[in-house]
């Protein structure tokens, strides 16, 4: 162990060395076969310390036996010593064996035993040929002999093999047997050697804190173990060894730098002279490596193991931490390096790993390692950029001589690592990139694009955007502002989406600078506005950009639309009018905004658009504000992703109504791409609320702005967007949601016909009010209103004009929301009570029908009174008019029959108030000769409403019929015979006398029989015996008398019992002309009012108390 490695070939050969003794020519024939066959099959490797059995492939290198090369018993590094010893012989003759071979083997074994080596094998190669087959099978073979002589107890140490040179099935079998025997025995011995090595490594590690311990020595030791494991095909275990070394070294660097006992570390603390790129694949460690070389070697080994175990992604994943560790260790160990050297190395290393990943590019692995390569791409692009900065290669820079010198120095330190023209090595690339600005630009942009692309591919959009920012700054240097703006815009959008306002504001500053450079005034204004309103930014910067914006505003020739975003916040919107607004009235809206501009701005116009709220294009999900005020809470945009899901129960039933499945479902339809946000739509500001006095000063902070608009369009509207115009800068808000709706209505005019409170009276000209109410719009003054009355009704609007049944009049000048009253004179005749006026209005085709109910001003009634044969007519007049009526000249006309007025009031005028009754009485002067059954009577009276009014005639027609007196009825009550008085409880006689009025009977033969009934009041009179009877008037002028018994039940002056008589029509005297329809029952017919005169009406009889009472 002298700290150097024996290098043979690219990889250190850790195959166990097998020595061959005996007849070497036999062996050399099969050596090649054996070397190939050994590692072909796996063999189980059992290990101590409970480690799992691994199946390994073991190979071997063969060397001729030499006693000098045999290891000593105590040696630990058996791996590099001959481990296994085989004696080859072809001897088949026992005699020959006895004579020479036996001794040879004996000597060979003695040599081995002397070194305490027990791993040996004797192989007897047999050659079958035709001749031998005929011979008898020998009793003992050479093999048996050897076994008996040397390995009586270890039969497996001797084996015979049929020479594999001859292709036979038997020989193949025996060959397999040999190979597996060698493999097995070799592994046993090798395992022992490995175990010893492991022990040694452990021992050495334990001593790591001792003075004089050297990491590099230990490194080689443990690496040997790793190489052994690698040789056995245990790449993962080999990796563990390298990882241990890695960790150990890191620990030393971190912890040991201060400690005295790790002075071997100082060997690494030498200035960096070389920064050759990391090279994956076979590599060797130079003597006395620099820390970078050591690290690179270690990583290359680890990567190699990972690649062997198909873990490309892990290699990629380990790369960045590895590079970070390296840089950190360089810093900790205070290793000085020329500027840029470390960056060069880091760049080369990351590029090497990336290229390796590319090489192992399988479709299914790209996904795996992209996750890690993305950051590597970014890292390498950062590194090359820092190099470019150092060497003055950034666009706009011109490298000075010092920088040129740096390039040369760096390139020299990189060494040479030429790749193929198709696949230039990282070193080639870096050298080329450092050569010229163009190449540098190309390389940097390529790497950055790759970083962005990979980030996007694995879904790390934010990281991609941050790379984009870097690229943007590079493009800015290049002067390609458009590209820079695109990247910055993307970044800005991402920041805004995530709500990182400060970052967004910073990006806006960069954007503003970008636009400034591009002389894009329009975009500069937008970005400056944003920056100046960004609260996160320093006030001085905001002022600068505000000034910038103000300066540029003048040069804007076309309107520039900038969304509100955070520049101006709408705090609240309040509709001060009712949500239903009459046409042409004012819509008042109070808008509270918060301006984030650092200074005042002068708004040349401030409007809020009014959007037509169409039912058709209304989406169901549009929300409406229930109240008339929108506050900040309502206006806050909600992230649909954070909304509560509307979960619905979902039950599925089977055909037999049994529940099949139960579940929940959510109709979540708001999934949409977030980054494809549409540019702000500018609403139609042609119809909008305006600020009355412009320009308007908007101060920083809260501003209350009152907007107005005359509602001259009808319909439903909602408040759309707020626009603040500062010269040609149009700041536009987003749509106000939830929608603040208002309705502008028109009110059509109306025409109504009102009567006064009193009921309408017919026959009197009265005034009705025709009220025309003008709604929200004016009616053409020349248009005409047409009134048509039903028959019997006349009307007129113009005073002193005759009443007509139909009239037209012009609407006339009108003002909104006023009503005009037109006095309509109206007169209905007395004939009909129900009338109707039809009104045709110019604004509607539908006529208005007004039914009118008239009542006469007076009502009259009449009654006929009789005194024996004399007849009196009483006419009652009732006033129906609200006001008093003056009546006079009451006249009763009874056809040709004269009548005389009773009393004097008929001619005189009377005042009759509402509801009061007034009576007139006339006596009919009956001429006994002229008898007509019916008198047509007409009552007329003149009336007027007041003295000035002209008289009007009220007429009342009625017929008087059956007025002549037919019977005169008389009754009296007498005490029974022997009594002087009528007493209570004593039966008295009721004498009923009926007399027919003589002259009438002649003409009225029908009525001959009369039925009388005593209708006594039951509490006063008790009728004893019959109460009714029929009397016949056969003889003329003969009064019929009936005596009935009645009994008074109370004392005092009692009215006589009432007697009623009726016409009695006997059954047999029915209509004899119609015999088939014989009326079998007698009938009663009442007399009409004037036909019976009852004299006894009003008579009373004095009844005294019964004598039995009291005393």
């Amino acid at each position, binding site marked *: 162990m002298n700290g150097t490695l024996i290098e043979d070939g690219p990889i250190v050969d850790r195959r166990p060395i097998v020595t061959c003794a005996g007849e070497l020519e036999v062996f050399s024939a099969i050596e090649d076969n054996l070397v190939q066959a050994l590692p072909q099959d796996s063999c189980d490797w059992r290990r101590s310390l409970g480690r799992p059995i691994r199946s390994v492939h073991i190979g071997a290198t063969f060397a001729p036996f030499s006693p000098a090369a045999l290891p000593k018993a105590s040696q630990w590094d058996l791996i590099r010593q001959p481990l296994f010893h085989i004696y080859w012989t072809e001897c088949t003759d026992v005699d020959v064996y006895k004579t020479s071979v036996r001794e040879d083997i004996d000597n060979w074994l003695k040599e081995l035993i002397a070194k305490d080596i027990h791993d040996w094998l004797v192989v007897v190669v047999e050659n079958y040929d035709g001749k031998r087959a005929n011979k008898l099978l020998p009793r003992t073979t050479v093999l048996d002999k050897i076994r008996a002589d040397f390995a009586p107890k270890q039969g497996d140490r001797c084996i015979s093999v049929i020479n594999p040179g001859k292709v036979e099935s038997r020989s193949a079998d025996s060959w397999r047997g040999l190979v597996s025997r060698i493999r097995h025995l070799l592994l046993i011995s090798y395992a022992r050697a490995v175990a010893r090595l492991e022990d040694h490594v452990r021992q050495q590690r334990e001593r790591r804190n001792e003075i004089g311990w050297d990491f590099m020595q230990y490194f080689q030791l443990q690496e040997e173990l790793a190489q052994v494991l690698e040789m056995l095909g245990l790449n993962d275990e080999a990796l563990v060894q390298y990882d241990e070394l890695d960790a150990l070294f890191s620990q030393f660097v971190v912890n040991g730098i201060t400690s005295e006992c790790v002075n071997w570390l100082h060997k690494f603390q030498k200035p960096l002279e070389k920064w050759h790129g990391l090279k994956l694949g076979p590599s060797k460690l130079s003597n006395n490596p620099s820390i970078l070389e050591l690290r690179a070697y270690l990583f290359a080994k680890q990567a190699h193991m990972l690649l062997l175990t198909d873990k490309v992604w892990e290699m990629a994943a380990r790369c960045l931490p590895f590079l970070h560790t390296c840089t950190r260790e360089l810093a900790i160990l205070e290793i000085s390096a020329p500027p840029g050297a470390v960056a060069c190395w880091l760049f080369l290393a990351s590029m090497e790993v990336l290229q390796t990943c590319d090489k192992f590019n399988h479709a299914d692995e790209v996904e795996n390692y992209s996750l890690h390569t993305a950051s590597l791409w970014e890292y390498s692009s950062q590194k090359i950029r820092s190099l470019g900065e150092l060497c003055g290669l950034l666009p706009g820079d011109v490298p000075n001589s010092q920088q040129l010198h740096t390039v040369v120095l760096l390139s020299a330190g990189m060494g040479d690592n030429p790749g193929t023209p198709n696949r230039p090595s990282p070193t080639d690339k870096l050298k080329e990139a450092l050569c010229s600005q163009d190449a540098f630009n190309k390389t940097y942009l390529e790497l950055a694009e790759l970083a962005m692309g990979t980030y996007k591919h694995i879904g790390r959009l934010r*990281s991609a955007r941050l790379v984009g920012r870097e690229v943007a700054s590079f493009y800015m240097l290049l002067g390609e502002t458009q590209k820079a703006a695109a990247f910055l815009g993307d970044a800005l959008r991402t920041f805004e989406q*995530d709500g990182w306002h400060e970052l967004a504001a*910073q990006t806006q500053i960069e954007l503003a600078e970008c636009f400034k450079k591009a002389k894009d005034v329009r975009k500069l204004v937008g970005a400056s506005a944003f920056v100046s309103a960004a609260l996160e930014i320093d006030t001085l910067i905001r002022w600068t950009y505000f000034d910038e914006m103000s300066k540029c505003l003048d040069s804007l020739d076309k309107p520039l639309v900038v969304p509100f975003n955070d520049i101006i916040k709408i705090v609240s919107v309040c509709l001060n009018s009712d949500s239903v607004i009459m046409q042409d009235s004012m819509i008042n809206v109070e808008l509270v905004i918060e301006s984030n501009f650092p200074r005042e701005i002068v708004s040349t116009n401030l409007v809020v658009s009014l959007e037509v709220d169409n039912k058709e294009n209304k989406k169901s999900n549009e929300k409406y504000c229930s109240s008339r005020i929108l506050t900040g809470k309502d206006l806050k945009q909600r992230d649909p992703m954070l909304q509560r899901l509307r979960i619905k129960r979902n039950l599925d039933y089977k055909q037999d109504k049994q529940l099949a499945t139960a579940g929940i479902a959510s109709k979540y339809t708001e999934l949409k791409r977030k980054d494809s946000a549409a540019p702000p739509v500018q609403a139609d500001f042609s119809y909008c609320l305006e600020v009355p006095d412009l320009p308007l000063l908007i101060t920083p902070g809260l501003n209350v702005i009152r907007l107005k608009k005359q509602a001259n369009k009808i319909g439903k509207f909602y408040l759309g967007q707020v626009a603040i115009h500062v010269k040609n800068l149009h700041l536009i808000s987003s749509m106000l949601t939830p929608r603040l709706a208002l309705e502008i209505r028109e009110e059509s005019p109306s025409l109504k016909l009102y009567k006064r409170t009193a009921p309408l009276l017919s026959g009197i000209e009265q005034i009705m009010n025709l009220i025309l109410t003008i709604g929200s719009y004016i009616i053409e003054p020349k248009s005409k209103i047409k009134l048509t009355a039903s028959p019997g009704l006349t009307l007129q609007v113009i005073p002193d004009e005759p009443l007509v049944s139909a009239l037209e009049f012009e609407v006339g000048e009108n003002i909104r929301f006023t009503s005009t009253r037109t006095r309509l004179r109206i007169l209905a005749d007395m004939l009909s009570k129900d009338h109707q006026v039809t009104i045709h209005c110019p604004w509607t085709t539908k006529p208005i029908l007004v039914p009118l109910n008239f009542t006469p001003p007076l009502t009259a009634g009449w009654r006929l009174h009789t005194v024996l044969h004399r007849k009196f007519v009483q006419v009652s007049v009732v006033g129906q008019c609200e006001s008093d009526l003056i009546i006079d000249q009451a006249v009763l006309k009874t056809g040709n029959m004269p009548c005389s007025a009773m009393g004097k009031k008929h001619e005189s005028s009377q005042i009759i108030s509402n509801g009061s009754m007034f009576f007139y009485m006339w006596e009919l002067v009956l001429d006994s000769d002229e008898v007509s059954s019916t008198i047509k009577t007409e009552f007329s009276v003149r009336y007027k409403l007041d003295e000035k009014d002209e008289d009007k005639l009220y007429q009342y027609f009625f017929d008087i019929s059956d007025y002549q007196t037919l019977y005169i009825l008389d009754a009296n009550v007498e005490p029974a015979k022997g009594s002087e008085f009528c007493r209570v409880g004593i039966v008295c006689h009721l004498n009923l006398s009926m007399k027919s009025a003589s002259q009438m009977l002649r003409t009225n033969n029908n009525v001959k029989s009369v039925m009388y009934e005593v209708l006594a009041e039951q509490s006063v009179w008790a009728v004893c015996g019959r109460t009714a009877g029929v009397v016949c008037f056969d003889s003329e002028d003969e009064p019929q008398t009936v005596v009935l018994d009645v009994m008074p039940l109370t004392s005092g002056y009692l009215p006589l019992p009432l007697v009623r008589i009726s016409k009695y029509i006997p059954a047999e005297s029915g209509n004899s002309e119609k015999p088939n329809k014989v009326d079998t029952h007698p009938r009663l017919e009442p007399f009409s009012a004037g036909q019976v005169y009852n004299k006894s009406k009003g008579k009373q009889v004095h009844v005294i108390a019964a004598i039995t009472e009291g005393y």
Partner: protein
Amino acid sequence: MAVCVAIIGKDNSPKFFTALNPDEELNYQYKVLSSLDIVEEKLGVGAKSGSDLRELYLGMLYSLETHKIYGYVTNTKIKFIIIVDSTNMALRDNEIRSMFRKIHSEYADTVCNPFYIPGEPISSKPFDVNIKNIMTGTV
């Protein structure tokens, strides 16, 4: 000692941000923002199904030459991010973990304040002081 602590709401917008060195704050913001990508990745579907759902600590999200960034996510998807100087070797995983736990309990106390509107950035001064103390390890 952490150099920066950030609390990110469930909508990924910053709710609280503090850095020991205020000049570095903007740089840290960029770092924290890009770490959200990895947090989202770790929280992504299937990524956490197997592991313990109660484990809120996400471990190191990524490392830079100068800094290491650690993440922690509450059950309500509030993300805590700690940035640590990579030269600081004293901070092991366990220390970071306990730092997160302290921040979590501090955060829980703050959002319990009835005057705090959930979802708004935290502007409480005592909270800032307490977090600073946790960062510097004086608690």
